[in-house]
Structure formats: C-alpha cells, structure tokens
C-alpha cells in the first residue's frame, strides 16, 4: 500500500505532461484487482465462518470496515496534499487534494450507509451515536464543509489556499473528537472482534478474508485516485494549451 503511495508521489514529481497509456501492465493490474475483489466477495459470503453472536451479519464486516478505513485514509491524503499545496503553491496539489476529498466523501457515505444497515440489524436502530458512528459522521460533516467552502469561492488560488487551510485545520481538531466521544457514549461496536489492541478473536479464515478485503479496497482506492490525478493533469495541460 505504502509502495503504491510512494510511486504516486514520484509520478507527480516527474512531470506535468503525462500521457495516459493503456499499457499491458496497467491492464493486468486492473484485471488482477477485479479478480481479487471478486474472490474477496465470494470468500466473504461462502468461505469465511460466522462470528459467534453476530450470525449472518458478520459478512458486512468485510465491506464496512475497509470502506471506513479508506475514508480515513483519503482524509489523511487530502491533508498531506493540502500541506504540499501551501508549501509549493502548485495548483495541481490542491486539485489532487480535492480529488482525495471527493473519493473520501464517497467512501464516507458508503461507510455510513453500510454501518447504519449493520446497526439496524444488530442493535435495532439505524443510528445510535456510537463513538465510531459519530466519528464517521464528523468526517462526513468536514467533507461537506470542505466542498461547501470550495463552492463559495470563485477565484482559483484563493479557493485552493482557503480550502487547504481548512482541511489541515480540521485534520488537527479531529483527534480530540476521537478522544472525547468514547467517554460519553459507550461503544456498541463489536470491539473485541476487530480491535487489535486486545487480541484478535477472528478465526484464521475470517482474518484472511478481512485482510484481503482491506488490501483490495485500499488498492481500489489508489487505482481510482491515480485515475483522478491523471484526469487533473490532463485538465491542467489542456488549460495551458488553450492559453
């Protein structure tokens, strides 16, 4: 995963004139990812055993948790690119941060919806203000605020600066939230099952499926992200050519 990220960064530095080529490698990657996610889905429904007490609801774990993880990852990447923008003032970094934000928002909505469905079937209501539900909701609010701010500013540079500052500022304040909320609402989340701090109570097959899914979703995110970065570069190049 880190490898993919560092490759992306190197790729950005190389040049802004990128020609998108449908290389064979690219196709193999994409096809591989498709197979991988297909196998993960199959494993989640057919191969992995059910957790005690959760029954059939266990299966959503393999989709909900990776999606939530990617949401946080996108938020982090957005903040990193915002910092790069403020340091270098190159508009491309802001556009990349925006792309990360768009993907983050999408994944955030997915995480909220899947979580909500899970909550309904296992705890009885769609929304319980469980600490993690609340945290993901805060991320949703931050993403919404980020895009509301962007749409309220016309001038490109000003938009880039202010939204970068906001995303960094939000990034700094989120950890407090994660700290304070659990003190108020006790968690309903199946903690011991997933939490790595205590011990992993997942059985081998479950763990394999879970980690494969986590990996698959992360790669999927980076693949879409890379596509969006390419798109941003093409747009910027086009604009340069027009002038």
């Amino acid at each position, binding site marked *: 995963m880190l490898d993919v990220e560092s490759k992306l960064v190197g790729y950005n530095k190389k040049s802004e004139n990128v020609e998108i080529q449908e290389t064979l490698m690219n196709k193999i990657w994409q096809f591989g990812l498709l197979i991988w996610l297909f196998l993960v889905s199959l494993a989640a429904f057919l191969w992995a055993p059910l957790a005690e007490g959760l029954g059939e609801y266990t299966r959503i774990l393999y989709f909900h948790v990776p999606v939530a993880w990617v949401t946080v990852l996108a938020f982090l990447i957005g903040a990193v690119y915002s910092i790069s923008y403020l340091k270098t003032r190159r508009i491309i970094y802001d556009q990349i941060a925006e792309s990360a934000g768009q993907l983050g928002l999408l994944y955030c909505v997915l995480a909220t919806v899947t979580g909500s469905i899970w909550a309904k079937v296992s705890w009885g209501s769609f929304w319980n203000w469980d600490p993690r539900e609340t945290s993901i909701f805060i991320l949703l609010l931050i993403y919404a605020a980020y895009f509301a701010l962007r749409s*309220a500013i016309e001038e490109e540079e000003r938009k880039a600066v202010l939204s970068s500052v906001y995303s960094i500022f939000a990034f700094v304040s989120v950890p407090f939230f994660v700290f304070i909320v659990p003190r108020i609402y006790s968690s309903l989340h199946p903690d011991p099952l997933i939490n790595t701090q205590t011990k992993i109570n997942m059985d081998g097959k479950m763990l394999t499926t879970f980690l494969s899914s986590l990996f698959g979703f992360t790669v999927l995110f980076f693949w879409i992200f890379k596509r969006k970065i390419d798109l941003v570069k093409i747009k910027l190049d086009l604009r340069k050519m027009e002038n």
Partner: protein
Amino acid sequence: MEIFRLKLLHDAWLIFQKDIRQEFKTRYSLNAIFLFALVTLVAVSFSIGTFTASADIKSALLWIIIFFSAMSGLSHIFVREEEKHTADTLKLVAQPTGIFLGKFLFNLFLLFVLELIIVPLYFAVMNFEVSGVAVFISVLLLGSLGLSAGATMTAAIISKASAKGALFAVLSFPILLPVIVAGINGTKIAVKQVAFAEAGSELQMLFAYSVVVITAAILLFDFVWNE
C-alpha cells in the same frame, strides 16, 4: 508596560483595543450575540418548562445556546474588515500573528461578556443547579477559550468567501464539536461532583484543544490573511 515588551503581544493588544472601540460604537456583534442568546434561552425555557428537564439535558442546552450565539456574532470581526475594505490597511501595519491574536482576544472577550449575562439568566430561568461551581466555571472558561480560538480561524476563512453567514456555522461545527461535547460532559459532571479530579480529563482535553488549535491557527493564519 513590561508585559508588552514583545512586539507581537503589543500589536495584538492594540488591535484588541481598536476592535473594542469599534465594537462599542456600533455594538453590532454584541447585540447580535446577546439577542440571539436571549431569544434561544426564552425559546428553550418556554418549550420545555422549568422543572421537567433533567440536569443532563439542561447541561447540553446551555452549551447549544452558547455555541449558536457564538456563531451569530464571532465572524463579524473579520467580515467587517473585508467588507469595509480595511483589511489591506491593517495588513500594511501589522503582522498576521499579531492580528490573529488580537482578533482572538476580542472574540474571547465577547464570549465572556455573553456568558457573564446569559449563564446567570440560564441558571435562574431553567432552575439549573451545579454542585461544583469551581469545576463549572473552569469548564466554561476553558470551553470559551477553545470556542473562540476555533471560531476566530474559521471566521478568517469565511470572510474571504461568499455566503459568509451560512458557511460560518457549517465550517465551525465539526471543528468546534470536541469543545461542545467536552463542555457538555464537564457541565454534567459539575452538576453532581465538587472535586476537580472528576472532570479532570474534560478540563485537560479542553486545555489541550485550545493550545493545539491556537498553535495551528497561528501557523495557518498567515496563508489565510495574505492568501
């Protein structure tokens, strides 16, 4: 004045004085905040009655009133400079950090004035009682510190955007939520407990939040102010 040896603090103090002077000639922010707080207080008291609500609910309502009142007036400090085209004039004579600190002080002052009036009223009208007065006051003071630090920064951001009024609450809410949640929790504890230790982690968190947010704001303010 010994304490103002530092140029930055001196600047901040001068800007604070200037803003106070300006505010007392128009009373725009003060009126907005205070009237908003009063109206919400009346609405809350009227709709839930004096004796029906539990202390937990009353603690939460107090912070909700404070938060939304703050949202009605704390952005004015920067919006005024932008709308009256005085921002550039100020830029010519002051460093960004001094400006941020001055504006932050002013918003803090505004919140304190609001709380001085609205909190006793709230206690009277809502029949609200706390056992740990010292704990409550500490939570309130540290909470205001965090609220004004976060709000001052978002105010600076939205002053450069269009649709300022709506954006201010939208941008501030997720950032200030830790303060509100910790404030509510701290107040709930103060209702029952006298000892500081009981609310220790809330107070620590509020303090840490203020320090971190003020630091981040000072580092980032330069980008907002000088674009």
